[in-house]
């Protein structure tokens, strides 16, 4: 089948909040729900400064490893787990999600949060993965292919009540960003 030429991306710019931020968009579950955890972090630029105008989107499996296909991420009903959320960074560059711990897709596989990051100054979105440190990381093909320093940027820090995952767009601790096989450069 002939391939159609893809539409190029462009920066999200500084003025996306009215359109892309929704009340409760970062609350995949309520804080009080059984099993609720907090996934949070800070987005940094190459000078080590926080990025206050970034947008982080999260896509994940449920605790059972299944992939939700339920509507309602923009207007949550308080009980349906949609597996998706979005959070604009605050003035200190921080994002935070209230969610459930993702399950691995199968025994012996690693569990991770899939993430995509947008920002003013970032001309196209970048994809990454935030792996759970207590998951089965040894067999993961992506992690195995990276040296220790790079690999570390993809693994969350476990902390009380959840995980921390900082995102460095550039610099010594630059996060590993992904290209999916078959996609255009």
């Amino acid at each position, binding site marked *: 089948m002939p391939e*159609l030429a893809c539409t190029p991306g*462009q920066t999200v710019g500084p003025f996306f909040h*009215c359109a892309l931020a929704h009340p409760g968009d970062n609350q995949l579950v309520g804080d009080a729900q059984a099993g609720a955890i907090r996934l949070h972090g800070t987005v940094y630029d190459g*000078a080590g400064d926080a990025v206050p105008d970034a947008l982080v989107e999260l896509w994940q499996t449920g605790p059972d490893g299944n992939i939700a296909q339920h509507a309602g991420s*923009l*207007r949550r009903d308080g009980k349906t787990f949609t597996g998706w959320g979005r959070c604009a960074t605050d003035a200190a560059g921080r994002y935070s999600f209230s969610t459930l711990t993702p399950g691995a897709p199968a025994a012996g596989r690693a569990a991770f949060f899939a993430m995509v990051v947008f920002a003013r100054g*970032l*001309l196209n979105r970048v994809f990454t993965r935030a792996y759970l440190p207590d998951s089965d990381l040894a067999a993961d093909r992506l992690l195995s292919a990276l040296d220790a320093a790079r690999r570390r940027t993809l693994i969350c820090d476990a902390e009380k009540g959840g995980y921390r995952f900082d995102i460095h767009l550039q610099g010594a601790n630059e996060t*590993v960003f992904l290209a*999916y096989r078959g996609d255009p450069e």
Partner: protein
Amino acid sequence: MKAAPESARAVSQREITVQIARIAADHHGKEGTQPRLNYPPYRSSQLRHPRSPFVCVDPDELECWAPCFGRRDVDPLDADLTAGHPGQPIGERIIVTGRLRDATGRPVAGQLVEIWQANAAGRYNHQQDQHPAPIDPNFTGVGRCLTEPDGTYRFLTIKPGPYPWRNHQNAWRPAHIHFSVFGTAFTQRLVTQMYFPGDPLFGLDPIYQSIVDPIARQRLIATYDHDLTEPEYATGYRWDIVLAGSRPTWTETNGDHA
């Protein structure tokens, strides 16, 4: 070492235009269908682009699926940016429509499209926008819709104005509408900007020019379509969107995706 604040040094349009031309000459004839993340003429890209190459992976099963949106997320009125206020917005009323497809030509149906834009005077409804142009009390500049079974999206809005920004001295963005689009796979996520034909600012704009392949960047320009124009009401623009790749054909390990 800290970089100087962006406002500290006023770079001229001439300097920016020279940089744009130099990068274009360096990449003449090479592939470059996506924006360059490291694009010095867009000054705020300098500390915000990854320096290491992307690591190529096979998408995991999770990444082969996309979040699902539905009628509970989107009100049909959300596609009319001229509505929802006491009066009519000022400006040139336009219809913007097109089809969302994947690279194999398959329509992406029932998926979320979100847009935002400046008003006719080039001012965003955003507290950070300091452009001294009037705010239109009848225009918020935000819309969303779900694509039809054939991938069609459609918005009624007003034509945005160009606006100044502080990338360099006398910097102006060509008029554009921001689009946020989901595909059938997480890997297809796209945020981009749609432009209007014949804009005199194209050659001067580092964001548009960051896509160094001229054929590729023209894919961001809508086409005026007189068949879409409604008599005595609104002019019509068509802009089709193609997302990278497609979801692999699904097999028996489908599991619980109900």
